[in-house]
């Protein structure tokens, strides 16, 4: 299938054109402060109105633009990455369906079409994770699908409950029903659904496990679109959720997620898992700034993070391809000498992740940190934010040391080639966007700028923690023999941090066996046991026996007719006498 106009090119051009159209519409919508809502009324009776709507405002158009840009780049990149795959058509159709569900989620102001998009995302990400059909992928896919399913159940319950208020368009209810008890319950469920989708504690075991998917899937799904669907849902609901008690819990959990992912990424040696954990850390950041009430800052960070994280995954994919499908960073090294262009993209996206000034991540991340400094918080949250920023720098410098500076550890350097132009072209698009999108977005989105005023030391605290984190990262990855971090001291504590606070272990080994054996007992005793007796086979037997009995009367035996005559006479005489 090496024809010139394969399905990759067609879908790339289509998505790119759609993205450009969105760009122009979005600029127009931001400036004229316009919101368009297109509705089709399905049925309306008795104070319930069921409508199908599409909401186009600047937020949804902007998000759609970014999703389309990333997906078009990834599809184009994938043509070269999966060129040895025979079923490429199937894969691309799955990715396009994924993009369509994401778009459906973005533009919908009512809960039913959000459910369609949400469930579509969960299902298609399951199909994509199990794409390489071996047992490890099956397990990873099951973990992904079941964790997402909890969120789906929450949204289903919200649907049922929201019909109480007349329609499923939550957009209309946001400002008006803040003190209603049932609306509070609905918001708690929405928060739980977003926590499962965006992999906060305690549901965060699926995100590193889902790295069993092919790398294009990780670049598209697990960096920018699927995991941000939860954050997007909460941004839409942000007006409803102010001053709730559950928001404080969300703040704590997302702050802990930030820290946990940062710590665990420091102990990991699998390249894709490190990037997955860094995604998890940034998701925690987005959720926590959202729970403080600054929804537009969360949105801004979502967009810029999508840019450089997709680029990071693509560079990681190129590296894995070159290392003969090996993902261990201990086997890589010295790459800045051998593959300069790819390592350029990698370095720039890493630095954007840390918040190096004037790259894409700086505008969003620094603004978030300064705004939290300026607001009224308890000390623990402030500590979590700044410590996680330092940890981001820590694992980034460690990763760059392992990949770029330390020596090359694999067989031969012949494999390392940088001239795969298809992959490079799509990485260049994202590189350009990750350089300028920070500043471009910060001018466009913030119609009402944030004023930041703090003393010199407070403002420089970001730099202080980054430098400290960087220094720790450099110290840890020096390959000396006398290097304390490679010893087995404090084994339990290290295992606690490595295995993501034991969450994957606990959600698999802690729960599964009891639930599975309970369901086995239910199935064996009730489904295949007693209820086969009362319905199913037992009923079949009963009816068969009764029809056998009733066949006796039809055997044309004369004695039956005489007996039934006598019996009937007896019965009539009995009735006359009594």
């Amino acid at each position, binding site marked *: 299938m090496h024809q010139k106009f394969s399905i990759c090119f067609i879908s790339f051009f289509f998505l790119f054109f759609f993205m450009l159209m969105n760009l122009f519409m979005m600029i127009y919508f931001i*400036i004229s402060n316009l919101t368009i809502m297109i509705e089709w009324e399905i049925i309306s009776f008795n104070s319930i109105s069921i409508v199908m709507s599409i909401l186009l405002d600047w937020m949804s158009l902007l998000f759609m633009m970014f999703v389309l840009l990333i997906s078009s780049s990834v599809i184009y990149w994938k043509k070269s990455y999966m060129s040895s795959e025979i079923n490429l058509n199937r894969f691309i159709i799955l990715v396009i369906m994924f993009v369509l569900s994401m778009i459906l989620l973005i533009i919908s102001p009512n809960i039913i079409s959000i459910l369609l998009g949400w469930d579509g995302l969960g299902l298609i990400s399951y199909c994509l994770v199990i794409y390489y059909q071996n047992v490890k992928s099956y397990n990873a896919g099951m973990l992904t699908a079941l964790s997402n399913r909890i969120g789906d159940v929450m949204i289903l319950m919200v649907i049922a409950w929201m019909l109480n208020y007349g329609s499923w368009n939550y957009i209309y209810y946001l400002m008006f029903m803040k003190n209603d008890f049932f609306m509070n319950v609905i918001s708690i469920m929405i928060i739980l659904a977003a926590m499962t989708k965006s992999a906060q504690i305690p549901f965060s075991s699926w995100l590193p496990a889902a790295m069993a998917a092919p790398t294009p899937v990780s670049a598209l799904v697990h960096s920018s679109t699927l995991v941000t669907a939860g954050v997007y849902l909460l941004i839409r609901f942000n007006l409803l959720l102010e001053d709730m008690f559950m928001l404080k819990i969300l703040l704590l959990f997302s702050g802990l997620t930030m820290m946990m992912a940062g710590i665990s990424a420091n102990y990991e040696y699998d390249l894709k898992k490190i990037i997955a954990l860094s995604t998890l850390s940034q998701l925690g950041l987005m959720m926590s700034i959202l729970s403080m009430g600054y929804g537009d800052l969360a949105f801004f960070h979502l967009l810029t993070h999508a840019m450089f994280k997709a680029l990071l995954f693509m560079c990681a994919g190129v590296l894995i391809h070159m290392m003969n499908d090996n993902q261990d960073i201990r086997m890589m090294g010295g790459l800045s000498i051998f593959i300069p262009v790819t390592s350029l993209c990698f370095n720039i996206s890493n630095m954007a992740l840390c918040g190096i000034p004037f790259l894409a991540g700086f505008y969003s991340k620094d603004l978030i940190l300064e705004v939290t400094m300026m607001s*009224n918080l308890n000390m623990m949250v402030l500590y979590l934010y700044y410590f996680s920023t330092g940890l981001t720098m820590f694992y980034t410098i460690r990763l760059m040391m392992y990949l770029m500076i330390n020596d090359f550890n694999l067989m031969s350097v012949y494999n390392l080639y940088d001239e795969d132009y298809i992959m490079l072209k799509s990485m260049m698009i994202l590189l350009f966007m990750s350089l300028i999108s920070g*500043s471009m977005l910060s001018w466009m989105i913030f119609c*009402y*700028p944030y004023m930041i*005023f703090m*003393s010199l*030391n407070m403002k420089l*605290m970001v730099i202080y923690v980054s430098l400290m984190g960087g220094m720790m990262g450099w110290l840890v990855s020096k390959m000396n023999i006398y290097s304390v971090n490679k010893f087995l001291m404090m084994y339990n504590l290290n295992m606690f941090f490595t295995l993501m606070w034991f969450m994957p272990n606990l959600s698999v080994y802690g729960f599964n066996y009891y639930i599975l054996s309970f369901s086995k007992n239910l199935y064996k005793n009730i489904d295949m046991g007693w209820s086969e007796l009362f319905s199913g086979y037992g009923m079949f037997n009963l009816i068969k026996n009764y029809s056998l009995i009733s066949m006796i009367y039809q055997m044309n035996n004369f004695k039956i007719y005489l007996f039934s005559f006598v019996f009937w006479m007896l019965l009539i005489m009995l009735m006359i006498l009594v």
Partner: protein
Amino acid sequence: MGNLLGSFNARNVNLNMDDKPTFDPQEGFSYERKPREMIAKEEDLISARIPPKYRDYCAHHLLEYQVCRYKNVPLMYKCAHEKHAYLNCEHQDYVMRMKEFERERRLRVRENRLIGVA
């Protein structure tokens, strides 16, 4: 990090961030204080659809900024001067809030001292 625990010392007099001042505005001043003026008109703010929480004493700079953004789209970086003017005005407002806070704290400390003596 001297200013990090900025309002921490005011906890002794039960004063936290975003509290309203409780004393009479003229108390303790030997001169008469100048009132703040609201320059932007109410109907301008309403027709520009600025959200209520941004309709403070700096709103005239905000209106200039919005006008400049509308004229310069998509090259919005050309509005840096108006944005800087708005942020400066907000900065002055913030400093004034800090001064009010400090004044409130000192008045409360003085109150406690007077009550303690009496």
